[in-house]
C-alpha cells in the first residue's frame, strides 16, 4: 500500500465530512452537498477531491461552467487521486466527449493502485484514501468505473480494451450473470467467436434453477445458437436449438422456426429444410422470404429460374396458392417465374383480382416485372384491353368458360383503377401526355379519389411543372384533411416549387400548436424529410445560409442517433436483450451511410466549396437577402411568387409571435430554475440557445473547407456506393491540398463508375493541377499520388485528346457531353468551342433529361455564355409542359392567370 499523499489526507472531522459529501451526492442532495463541500474547503481550500466533488455537484445544479472550472482545478491539485479522474470522466461523458472520458477513466483505474495490477485485492484497500476504511463501497466504486469504461469502449468500438475490461469485471464479480454475458459479447464483438462460445458454455453449466419460460434465458440461448451458426457449427447449433425449443427454454416460437429453417437450409437442400419452410409459410403466407427459403431447399432461385425447373416451380407455387387461398404472394411469384409465353393468363387473373378489389399499389407491385419487355408489353395490352371493354360496356373478364357469378360487378371502380394503373404505366415508360390524358378522364370520372390528384402532381413534377404539381397535390390534401401522408406530400411539393411559407402553413396543421414554429417542432421530432426539403428549397433560392442551417440540423440528428446507443451498452446487458442489441450496434456502425445524411453532407460541402472558391458570394447573399424581400422577388428560376406586401406583413407578424413565444418559454424556464435550485439537471450537456438562427455564422465561417471536411469525414470509413460522395470528398480534399485523399477518392469513384462525367472532369482537373504545382508533395505522398494518377488517366495522351475521346465515346449521353464541355473549360479552351460542344446536347440523337438540361443551362450561365438564352428557349420548347425554363415575367403572368381562375372558382352563389 502506498502512503496517502500529505495534501490528500484530511483530519478526522473533515474526513467524515467528506464521506458525508459523497453520500449526499449519491442521494442527490445537491444543496446540502454543496454546503458540506464548502465546509471542508474553508479549512482546506486546496483539497483536490473536495473541489472536484463540489464541481460535480454544481454541474448537476446546472452551473456547468463554474463546475467545470472547479473540477479542472481539483484535478490539477491532486493528479494521482482516482476520485478526481473519475469525476472528470463523468463530466466529459456528459459532454459526449467519449475519447477523453475514457482516458480519464483509465487514469482513475491506474491510480486506484490495485486496479489492473491485482484485481482481487480490492477489499483490503481503502477507497477514498487509505485512512478511510470503506471496503464495500470501495469495490462497488471500482465496479462502476470499470463498467463505465466498458460502455465507453463499446461506444468507441475499442473491442480489444473491452475484452480486458469485461474480463476483469467477471473476475471481480463472477456471481453476476450479466458479467458473463458481457464477456461473451466482448469476445464476439472482437471477432473471437470460439472464446465467446466457451464463456457461454461455462456460464450455462454454472446455472442452477432457471425458472420455466424465462425470456432472458430464451434470448441468451438464441444468442448461443447464433454464435454457433456464425462459427459454421450448424449441426451443433441445430441440436442446441432443438433441445431448448422442445423444453420450451426458448420461448420465441417464430424465431425458433425461422432459425431452424435457416440452419437446415445452410446445411444444404433437403426434405427437412423444405418442411421447415413449409411450416413457416403456413404460419405467414404473406412473407415472400419464406417462399425463397422454401425454394432454396430445392436448389431453386425464383428470381433466376432455369428452363428445366420452371414448370416444377410453377406447380409448387400453384399448390401453395391452393393451400393459402387468401394470399397474393404465390401468384405474384408465379408472374416472376413464368416465361413470357405463359405469362398472359396468369397476369390476367392477377390484374383483374387487383383491379376489382381496388388495390392502389397494384402498379408499384408489378413494376419490377417491367425489366422483361415482353411481360411489360403483355401487361399494357391486357390493362388497355380492360379499359376498352369497360368503355364499351362489357365486363373486362368475359372469357367463354367464366359464368358471370356476380351480376352486380364493381364496374365503375374497376374502370377507375384501370385508368389509374394505365396512367402510371404510360408515365413510367415516358409517354407523359398519354398518361396525363388518361388521368384527366379518371379525375372526370371520380374527382374524389386523392390518389388521382397525387399522381397528377407526380406526373407534372416529372414534366418540370413544379407549381402545377404542388397545386395538384394540394387538391388531394383538401379532400382529406386528416391524412398526414397527404399533408406531408403537399408540403413537400410546395417546397419543391419554392413556396416555403405556404409549406410551413400546411405542415403547421399537424405540428404541435405551442411550438415556436412548425419547422422547430419538426426539427425536434427529427424529421429528416422536412429538413432536407426545406434546405434544398433555400439552396435553390440562393439563401445558402438557411440551407446550411438545415443541413447542419440533419447532422445534429445523426449525432443524436449515435449518442442514443450509449445507454443501451448497459441496459441491454441488464435486460438480457442481446440479439436485438447486436442489431442495434451493427445499425449504428452503418448509421452515417443513411441516404439522408449523405444527401446533406454532399449538399453542404458543395455550398462550402462554392463559398471557398468565391468568398464574395457570402457577402452578396447577405446584402441581397436583406433587399430581396423588398425589390427582387423573382431572383431565381424556382422562385415563382414574391411576397406581396400583405404576405410580408403576415410573415412579420408570425416572426413576432414566434419571438414572443420564445421569450415566454425562456421566462418560464427561468422561473422553474429559480424555484428549485436543488433540482438535478443531470450531467448531459443541455442544448444551448441557438445564437445563429439564420445560419449567418455558418455562411461567413472563415474555414468553409474544414466544416465541409467534418461533414464528409464520417463517410470515409464506410463503403459508400454513391459516387457523388467521393466526388465531394475530392472537391474538398484537393482544395485543402490533401492530394493523397483526393486521388484516393477518385480511385473509389472509378471503381463505382469509371465513365461518370463528374469523375472525368475531376480526373482532368487533378492532372492539370498536379502538373502546375510549383513543388510536388514530399516523397512518399508524391510517389503514391503520381502512380495513382497514372492509373486513373494514362500519361501517353494529351489531356485534350483524352477529353476528345471521352466526348466521342459518349456523344449521345447529355451529361457526358456536359462533362466533356467542362473538361474543355478546365483545359482553357475558348468559350465558343465550349459552347459548341455543350449545345450539342440539343441534337435529336442525344437523350437530354430535364435535370441535365437544367445543369447545362446553369453551366452556360456560369461561363456567361451569350448563347444561354438560346439554349433556354430550345428547352422551353422541348419540355413544353415544364415551367422551369420560363422567364420570371412569363411566370408572373402564369401565376396571375392561375390565381384568376382560382378566384373565379370561389365565386359563390348564395
Amino acid at each position, binding site marked *: 500500500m502506498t502512503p496517502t499523499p500529505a495534501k490528500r489526507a484530511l483530519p478526522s472531522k473533515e474526513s467524515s465530512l467528506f464521506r458525508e459529501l459523497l453520500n449526499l451526492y449519491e442521494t442527490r442532495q445537491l444543496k446540502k452537498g454543496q454546503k458540506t463541500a464548502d465546509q471542508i474547503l474553508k479549512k482546506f481550500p486546496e483539497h483536490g477531491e473536495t473541489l472536484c466533488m463540489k464541481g460535480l455537484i454544481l454541474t448537476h445544479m446546472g452551473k456547468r461552467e463554474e463546475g467545470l472550472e472547479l473540477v479542472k482545478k481539483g484535478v490539477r491539485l491532486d493528479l494521482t487521486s482516482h476520485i478526481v479522474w473519475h469525476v472528470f470522466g463523468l463530466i466529459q461523458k456528459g459532454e459526449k466527449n467519449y475519447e477523453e472520458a475514457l482516458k480519464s477513466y483509465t487514469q482513475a483505474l491506474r491510480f486506484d493502485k490495485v486496479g489492473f495490477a491485482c484485481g482481487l485485492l480490492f477489499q483490503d484497500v481503502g477507497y477514498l484514501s487509505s485512512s478511510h476504511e470503506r471496503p464495500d463501497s470501495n469495490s462497488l466504486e471500482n465496479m462502476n468505473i470499470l463498467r463505465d469504461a466498458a460502455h465507453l469502449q463499446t461506444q468507441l468500438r475499442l473491442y480489444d480494451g473491452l475484452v480486458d475490461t469485461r474480463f476483469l469485471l467477471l473476475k471481480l464479480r463472477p456471481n453476476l450473470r450479466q458479467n458473463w454475458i458481457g464477456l461473451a459479447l466482448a469476445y464476439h464483438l472482437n471477432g473471437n467467436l470460439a472464446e465467446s462460445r466457451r464463456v457461454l458454455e461455462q456460464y450455462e453449466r454454472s446455472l442452477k434453477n432457471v425458472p420455466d419460460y424465462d425470456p432472458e434465458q430464451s434470448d441468451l440461448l438464441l444468442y448461443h445458437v447464433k454464435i454457433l451458426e456464425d462459427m459454421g457449427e450448424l449441426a451443433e447449433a441445430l441440436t442446441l436449438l432443438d433441445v431448448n425449443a422442445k423444453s420450451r427454454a426458448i420461448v420465441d416460437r417464430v424465431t425458433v422456426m425461422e432459425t431452424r429453417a435457416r440452419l437446415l437450409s445452410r446445411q444444404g437442400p433437403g426434405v427437412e429444410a423444405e418442411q421447415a419452410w413449409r411450416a413457416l409459410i403456413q404460419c405467414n403466407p404473406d412473407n415472400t422470404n419464406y417462399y425463397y427459403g422454401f425454394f432454396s431447399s430445392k436448389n431453386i432461385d425464383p428470381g433466376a429460374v432455369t428452363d428445366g425447373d420452371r414448370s416444377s416451380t410453377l406447380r409448387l407455387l400453384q399448390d401453395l396458392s391452393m393451400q393459402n387461398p387468401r394470399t397474393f404472394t404465390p401468384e405474384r411469384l408465379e408472374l416472376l417465374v413464368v416465361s413470357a409465353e405463359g405469362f398472359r393468363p396468369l397476369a390476367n387473373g392477377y390484374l383483374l383480382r387487383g383491379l376489382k378489389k*381496388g388495390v392502389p399499389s397494384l402498379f408499384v407491385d408489378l413494376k419490377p416485372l417491367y425489366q422483361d419487355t415482353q411481360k411489360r408489353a403483355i401487361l399494357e395490352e391486357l390493362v388497355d384491353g380492360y379499359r376498352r371493354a369497360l368503355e364499351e360496356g362489357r365486363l373486362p373478364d368475359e372469357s367463354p368458360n367464366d359464368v358471370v357469378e356476380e351480376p352486380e360487378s364493381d364496374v365503375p371502380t374497376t374502370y*377507375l383503377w384501370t385508368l389509374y394503373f394505365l396512367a402510371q404505366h404510360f408515365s413510367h415508360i415516358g409517354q407523359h401526355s398519354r398518361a396525363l390524358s388518361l388521368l384527366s378522364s379518371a379525375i372526370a370520372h371520380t374527382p374524389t*379519389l386523392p390518389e388521382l390528384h397525387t399522381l397528377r402532381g407526380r406526373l407534372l413534377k416529372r414534366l418540370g411543372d413544379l407549381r402545377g404539381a404542388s397545386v395538384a397535390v394540394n387538391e388531394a*390534401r383538401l379532400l*382529406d*384533411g386528416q391524412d398526414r401522408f397527404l399533408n406531408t406530400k403537399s408540403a413537400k411539393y410546395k417546397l419543391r416549387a419554392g413556396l416555403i411559407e405556404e409549406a410551413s402553413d400546411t405542415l403547421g396543421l399537424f405540428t404541435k400548436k405551442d411550438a415556436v414554429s412548425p419547422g422547430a417542432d419538426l426539427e425536434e421530432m427529427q424529421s429528416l424529410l422536412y429538413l432536407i426539403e426545406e434546405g434544398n428549397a433555400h439552396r435553390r433560392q440562393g439563401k445558402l445560409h438557411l440551407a446550411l442551417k438545415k443541413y447542419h440540423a440533419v447532422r445534429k440528428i445523426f449525432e443524436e442517433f449515435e449518442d442514443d446507443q450509449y445507454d443501451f451498452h448497459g441496459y441491454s446487458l441488464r435486460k438480457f436483450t442481446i440479439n436485438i442489441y447486436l442489431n442495434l450496434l451493427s445499425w449504428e456502425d452503418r448509421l452515417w451511410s443513411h441516404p439522408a445524411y449523405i444527401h446533406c453532407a454532399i449538399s453542404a460541402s458543395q455550398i462550402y466549396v462554392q463559398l471557398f472558391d468565391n468568398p464574395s458570394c457570402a457577402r452578396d447573399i447577405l446584402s441581397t437577402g436583406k433587399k430581396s424581400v423588398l425589390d427582387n422577388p423573382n431572383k431565381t428560376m424556382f422562385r415563382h411568387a414574391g411576397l406581396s406586401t400583405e404576405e410580408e406583413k403576415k410573415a412579420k407578424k408570425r416572426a413576432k409571435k414566434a419571438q414572443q413565444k420564445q421569450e415566454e418559454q425562456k421566462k418560464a424556464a427561468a422561473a422553474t430554475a429559480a424555484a428549485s435550485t436543488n433540482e438535478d439537471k443531470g450531467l448531459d450537456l443541455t442544448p444551448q440557445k441557438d445564437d445563429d438562427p439564420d445560419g449567418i455564422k455558418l455562411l461567413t465561417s472563415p474555414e468553409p473547407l474544414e466544416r465541409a471536411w467534418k461533414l464528409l469525414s464520417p463517410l470515409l470509413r464506410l463503403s459508400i456506393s454513391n459516387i457523388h460522395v467521393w466526388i465531394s470528398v475530392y472537391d474538398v480534399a484537393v482544395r485543402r491540398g490533401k492530394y493523397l485523399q483526393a486521388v484516393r477518392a477518385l480511385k473509389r469513384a472509378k471503381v463505382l463508375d469509371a465513365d461518370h462525367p463528374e469523375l472525368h472532369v475531376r480526373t482532368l482537373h487533378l492532372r492539370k493541377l498536379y502538373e502546375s504545382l510549383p513543388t510536388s508533395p514530399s516523397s512518399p505522398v508524391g510517389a503514391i499520388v503520381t502512380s495513382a494518377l497514372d492509373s486513373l488517366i494514362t500519361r501517353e495522351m494529351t489531356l485534350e485528346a483524352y477529353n476528345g475521346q471521352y466526348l466521342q465515346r459518349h456523344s449521345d449521353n447529355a451529361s457526358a457531353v456536359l462533362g466533356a464541355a467542362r473538361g474543355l473549360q478546365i483545359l482553357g479552351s475558348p468559350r465558343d468551342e465550349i459552347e459548341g460542344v455543350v449545345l450539342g446536347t440539343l441534337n435529336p440523337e442525344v437523350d437530354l433529361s430535364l435535370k441535365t438540361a437544367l445543369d447545362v443551362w446553369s453551366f452556360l450561365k456560369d461561363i456567361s455564355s451569350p448563347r444561354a438564352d438560346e439554349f433556354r428557349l430550345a428547352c422551353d420548347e422541348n419540355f413544353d409542359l415544364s415551367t422551369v425554363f420560363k422567364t420570371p415575367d412569363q411566370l408572373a403572368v402564369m401565376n396571375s392567370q392561375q390565381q384568376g381562375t382560382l378566384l373565379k372558382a370561389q365565386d359563390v*352563389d348564395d
Partner: protein
Amino acid sequence: MTSSKKALSTKVSFASLTQNNLGTVRKLNSVLFPIKYSEKFYSEILLPEVEDFCKLSVCQYILSRLPEKPIALAVYYNDIPVGTICCRIETKDSINHLYLLTMGVLAPYRSLGIGSYTLDVILRAAATHTKPKIGRIYLHVQVSNDSAKQFYERHGFRESGIDEGYYKKITPSGAWVLERDIQPLESEQQD
C-alpha cells in the same frame, strides 16, 4: 333483389362530415349540382352538434339525438367517396319536417341502387325517430329534372306544389316541392 341489396350494403358506407372531409363534399357538390353553395352552407353542416356523427350503423341513434341542425353524410362506394346527403329538421305548422337539402351520387355510380339505399336509410331513420317525432319529409327539385322527380316518386313522394322563382341564379327557376308523410314505426318495416 334482397341478395343484391345485401351485397350493396357491404359496399356502401357512410361517414359524417367534419372539417377534414369537407374538401370532398365541396368537390362532390361542385360536380353534382349546378348551384355553388355558400360558405354558410358548409359551416352549417359542420356545426359542433353534428361533430360526433360517424357511420351508417349508428345513423338512427344520431338522428334521435339530433337538435334542429342539419344531418350530413358522405356516401362511400368501395371506399371511394361517391355521393352526399344533407338534411335538417324544421318545424312547420307544429309538424316536424325533415328537409332534404341536397342529395347526389357521381354519374358513373348511378343506377347501382346507391341513391335508393341512401334514401331508405334516411327514411327509416326518420320513421323510428322519437325526439322530436318526424311527421313529414320534403324537398325541392328543379322543374326540368324529371328523372329526379321520378326517383322520389318511386320512393313514395308526391308533388305538393311548385315554388316559382325558388332558384335565383339558374333556369328554369321553378322547383317542384315533393313530400312524403312518415309513419312512425317502432320496428323495421318494408316501405
